[in-house]
């Protein structure tokens, strides 16, 4: 069998070589990059624009953005037919291709996030390393930790007020530079699709902007969701620990902080959501009005075959319902959780409807293709480009975040 034949069902006239070549991993790629960019933009709101109310969540989203970063690349690797040659995109880039910029955009962005993190956490590195240095008898793990944190200071041990002020300036610069680069990273993912003139559903100059807005939406939603989850866990732990140490913050105090952050962040989410929705509807309206030669088949996909996916799940459940949930007065944690989950699903469906929907019709405009998502894998390919491969990609950032949290403690510093 040739690549794509397993999961492609053809209807009416489809060119013999046409199959669904870009599968769920290509849905995951813009979804994950979107989360990276969105999380970073959220953290920058605090650092650049000094929105103090977001202090708590800013640090969280910065670390989370870093945890998501390597995962944004994994779907591409899993999708390549020759993953061992993936590095060639960076070694021998062919600059007329939109994908060739990936290496540059991705590594620039990675370096910016890493250096911002370093400025934020340098004090913590120095303090931890010094504390471990003082310790007389160190266990093997502590010795390893000492070496790690000493290395992470990069030899900058000065934590005087003057030096820390400089750090803060560094954070601000990195966060400022990071915003356009994050937008570039994701806007460019949109350009990859928007510039394919052969695909009637993808080709639109609005695509980069649609991608950026939906990226911010999904990034904020994920950060709020994870923030709520960790805060709930912290509340449980705090209640339990306070029995021994009453100086720790009470669950009620934590709850106030949590609601405050969530309400503030939800406002930004609503703005980004409205912008994304507006652009997408503009695109749809334009297509419907202009009625290009491809409109007939694209119409049959949008209003016919993918109607439930697009209008019920994506726009309805994924956009309008959460919009109502966030706009109703007196936001509660439960409502925020439901809202963010729906938003994330909505953005995922937007990617799905774009990537899979774009291949749902033949380039002949005379037939259709249906992607039959492989659920139970029977070989490497149906694992990689099936449900399990996508779940793997979805779970990895949380594992990375758990590991990174040991080095960059998200909550410890402000306590």
């Amino acid at each position, binding site marked *: 069998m040739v690549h794509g034949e397993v999961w492609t069902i053809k209807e009416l006239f489809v060119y013999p070589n046409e199959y669904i070549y870009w599968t769920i991993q290509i849905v995951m790629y813009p979804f994950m990059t979107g989360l990276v960019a969105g999380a970073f933009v959220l953290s920058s709101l605090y650092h650049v624009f000094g929105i103090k109310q977001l202090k708590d969540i800013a640090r969280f989203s910065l670390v989370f953005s870093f945890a998501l970063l390597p995962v944004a690349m994994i779907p591409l690797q899993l999708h390549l037919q020759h993953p061992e040659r993936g590095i060639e995109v960076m070694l*021998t880039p062919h600059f007329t*291709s939109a*994908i060739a910029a990936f290496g540059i955009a991705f590594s620039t962005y990675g370096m910016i996030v890493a250096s911002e993190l370093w400025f934020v956490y340098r004090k913590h590195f120095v303090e931890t390393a010094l504390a471990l240095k003082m310790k007389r008898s160190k266990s093997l793990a502590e010795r390893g930790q000492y070496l790690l944190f000493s290395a992470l200071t990069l030899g900058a041990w000065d934590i005087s007020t003057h030096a820390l002020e400089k750090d803060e300036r560094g954070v601000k610069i990195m966060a400022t530079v990071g915003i356009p680069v994050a937008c570039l990273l994701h806007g460019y993912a949109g350009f990859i699709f928007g510039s394919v003139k*052969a695909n009637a559903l993808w080709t639109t100059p609005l695509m980069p902007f649609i991608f950026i807005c939906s990226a911010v939406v999904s990034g904020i939603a994920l950060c709020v969701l994870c923030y709520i989850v960790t805060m709930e866990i912290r509340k449980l732990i705090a209640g339990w620990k306070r029995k021994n140490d009453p100086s720790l913050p009470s669950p009620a105090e934590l709850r106030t902080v949590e609601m405050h952050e969530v309400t503030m962040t939800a406002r930004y989410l609503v703005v980004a959501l409205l912008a994304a929705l507006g652009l997408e509807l503009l695109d749809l309206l334009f297509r419907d009005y202009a009625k290009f030669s491809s409109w007939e088949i694209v119409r049959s996909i949008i209003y016919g075959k993918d109607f439930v996916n697009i209008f019920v799940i994506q726009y309805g459940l994924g956009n309008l319902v959460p919009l109502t949930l966030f706009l109703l007065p007196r936001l509660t944690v439960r409502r925020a959780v439901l809202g963010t989950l729906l938003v994330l699903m909505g953005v995922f469906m937007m990617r799905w409807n774009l990537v899979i929907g774009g291949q749902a019709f*033949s*380039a002949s405009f005379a037939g259709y293709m249906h992607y039959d998502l492989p659920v139970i894998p029977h070989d490497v390919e149906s694992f990689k480009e099936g449900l399990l491969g996508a779940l793997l990609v979805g779970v990895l950032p949380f594992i990375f975040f758990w590991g990174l949290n040991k080095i960059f403690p998200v909550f410890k510093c402000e306590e």
Partner: protein
Amino acid sequence: MNRRDFLKNSITVIAGLAVPLSALELVNPRSLLAGKGDGPALRWAFLVDTQACVGCGFCVKACKTESEIPNEINITRTWVERYVVTRDGKTFVDSPRGGGDGFTTDHIDLNEHGRQEITAEKIEKAFFVPKLCNHCDNPACVQVCPVGATYQTPDGVVLVDRKHCIGCAYCIMACPYGVRSFHPVYKTAEKCTFCYHRITRGMKTACVDACPFGARKIGNLRDPDDPVTKTIMSGRVGILKEQYGTKPQVYYLALSREVK
């Protein structure tokens, strides 16, 4: 400085800058060479006579043999499409297995929708259209390849470097003609090469040699005496999907408007 002076000065500066900036325009050596009239002496082009094609599928079989793609594998570098236009104005198209086994029944293959029989009395017109890579002058696939594994030779043929292709499928997505696929063994982008290994040795492509009716021809557009060039220059030929701006170099005689 008042507003009038500011605008005046701005226009003077812009106009002054425009002159030296125009001198910085990059000159493509190839187009310079072409301007002199001694550009590449060869530009391969293909001519398909849809009125001569009977849909026997010999070309598809020959191509599969030549390119070592087993017949049962469902990709093909070239294929034949059957068009059936009924009296009520409906167009039916099919190309079962790329048309390699010929079209021996009057049942149209609608894939998942099964087969539909169209009897002779319902048919207004019917014809066959062979398809292959258009080896475009402005190939979208070459533009989008992130590593430059797909490239255009100086004589206009678009090829794939199997040792360099990363298998991202961006070229497959970018091709409006659906001529690209993945090779089942090499796992790299697969496409018609105009039988580059043959034409560069003075032979014809496998499909041209296999066609018993002369429906397929290959020639050199730079040679005014080439019969293919003569037909393309003086005959009424059409190309596929002109709106994409890819400048395809496979020309069709008697191309009907129904052709996708």
